């Protein structure tokens, strides 16, 4: 295909019937505060890793919940677990534990 320097973005439509919820369920079972997140983005604003890379915990949590793990697997090893996000979270989400759990679960699935 000819390269015009631009392209079409892939459709963002999700088929909820085909979405894999297992990761979401497993993490929510081990860390119930996972479901408290209301995506304010404070964690991302304060993130040490996010200062240098595209690490965005708010987005990653959302992607896990949507079952779109590919981007998560690429990003999650960048977290330094410093815990600033946990301190600023207004909803008391255990963000460090969630990062560890995502990592653990993806590792178990041999994705990460």
């Amino acid at each position, binding site marked *: 295909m000819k390269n015009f320097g631009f392209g079409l973005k892939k459709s963002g439509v999700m088929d909820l019937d085909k979405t894999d919820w297992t990761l979401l369920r497993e993490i929510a079972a081990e860390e119930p505060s996972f479901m408290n997140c209301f995506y304010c983005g404070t964690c991302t604003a304060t993130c*040490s890793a996010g200062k240098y890379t595209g690490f965005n915990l708010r987005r990653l949590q959302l992607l896990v919940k949507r079952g779109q793990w590919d981007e998560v697997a690429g990003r999650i090893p960048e977290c*330094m*677990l410093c815990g600033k996000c946990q301190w600023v979270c207004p909803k008391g989400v255990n963000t460090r534990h969630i990062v*560890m759990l995502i990592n653990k679960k993806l590792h178990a699935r041999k994705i990460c």
Partner: protein
Amino acid sequence: MHERFANAYDPFVIPYMIGFVFVIAYLIVALCFVVKSLPMSDRKKMLKHLFSYKIFITVKDIFADCLLHVKIWKKNKLLGYMHSSIAFGWFMLIVVGHIEIFFYAPHRVNLPYYPIFFRYFMMETETTVGGSVFFFLMDFFLLMVLSGIALAMIKRIRRRLFGMKRTTRLKWNDQLGMYALWCIFPLRFLAESFTSHISGGGFLTRGFGMIFDWFNQFMNNDALIRPTWWAYSIALMVFFLTLPWSRFTHILSEALLIYMRNAGIRETSKNNGYASVEIYSCSRCGLCLDPCQMVSGASLRQMASVEFTRNIRWGQTTQALEAASYCLMCNRCVQACPVGVNSVQLKLNLKGADVSYRYPHRYDYVESEAAPSPLATTSAWADILQGEAVTAETAGVSAAGAGKPEVVYFAGCMSHLTPRIEQSMVRIFEAAGVRYTFLDEDGGICCGRPLMLAGDRTGGEQLVVKNTEAILATGAQILVCSCPICYKIFKDTYKLEGVRVLHHTEYLLQLLEAGRITVRKSAETGVFHDPCELGRHSGIYRQPRDILYRVLNLHTTPYEGKDALCCGHSIAAEGMPYKKRRMIAKDALRKMTENPVDVLVTACPSCKRAFAEIGTTRIKDIAEIVSEQLVCPHLAAQPKK
């Protein structure tokens, strides 16, 4: 004295001998397993220790800890007496029993049951001075043990008398062992009393025996003697047989633990032999329950260290891992443990051994071109790269060594969330005329300790390498950090040659003592909260107090120094829900401010935030207080909130 039976045998010794042989066999097998699971270097250490002069220290430690229980005496006299009377009394009964054999029946030394049932097999012929001394000694130590057993029974009902609010709940295996132990000595007392008209006895056994003799006038003579000896022997057997599966394994393993610890062996991995000796040495005394703030502040009893060691011992790894992920690693339980079980290190090892945590890390972004080095973006760092150090433009700075900063300041991630600490430190540096560079002024990378506390050593080490390069490149002689979490890892793990690592409390005291800054004393009252990582983990208690005496009216609380409380927001407790953290923080703040003060001073940004978000007490970092009280006319006034 002479023997009653020529064959020196009675069937009732069989149960005792079964138990005795079993324990000896268990001891040998267990020792082989422990040595086998140690690396070669540790085995050499063990052997070397045996022939070094330090063995005397080990013997002294074993005597003081296993028999006299000196550490428990320091906690509570009654509890100390209870433990040492049973342990020391029993030990002396064995020792004096053997001496008696040497005196009166040296040809029976090869019979292991002979000293145990001595009073049955020997009879008194005439009253001798030597014999009465032994009678007295044996009865004295028996009384000592009996008083200890009585106290142990009382402790199960009224533990507050012994200074304990909580104690462990015993499972059936521990109960069986405990009841057998409780039975042994009363049965021995009865058996010796009933036999005392034949064998003789001291003030206790003969005294009770005489009452028994009087009753005997109306009953069948001597019918109770052999059954009581049988019961005594069976109680011993039950105790010995349950020994490997009950809390009383510590009787065997504690001495080995002390020996290995003094030989310089540590729990380096989960399956290390030392770690298993530590786990078996946990006597489930429950002394770690009261200090544990998860138990006292957040009702998380199942997460206490004593339950953790139990879970590991019985292979319940899931529960043990959960307890490890809840633990604040404040070290209060380690401090309280009379045996010296380092449960915090055991938890870290377990976290590290959990295979699922070994995920790949990608911290190459720190130097990659796509994302410019974080350090290069900081103004201070850029200046250093160009050979121009940031210097304070104040009078009194020596020109020697110009170009290189005197101090490199690493605020740490947590301090970025409490900017007033950073501002205060910068203000103090400028007031003192220190040539400093602020390494992570525009945000830096993590020090690596949070990763290590999550059990991820390899990930942490990657960050250690990055930070080491950055710190050494500054050429500064002193590294000052504001966060005790960073301070701990910089001091213990980093290899920063030629750089002194100081927490800002230490550095501020140096500045004050050298007269580089002057402060005035305010009329405010305050108490100091020792952060766990600075106090118990790093041993810094004096410096912050020396500073605070100069700037405010320092009050004391019962929760200071080694008894300091944790703020509940430890970076180690990744699994603990926010609600529970808050409960612990609230509980700690309430305890520390029972006598109201104007300000609670701490030296950790994390503790400051934890206490600041609850309660109405003003919380300040020590740097803020010093900065406010600086006498420094050429600097602008402290910025107001």
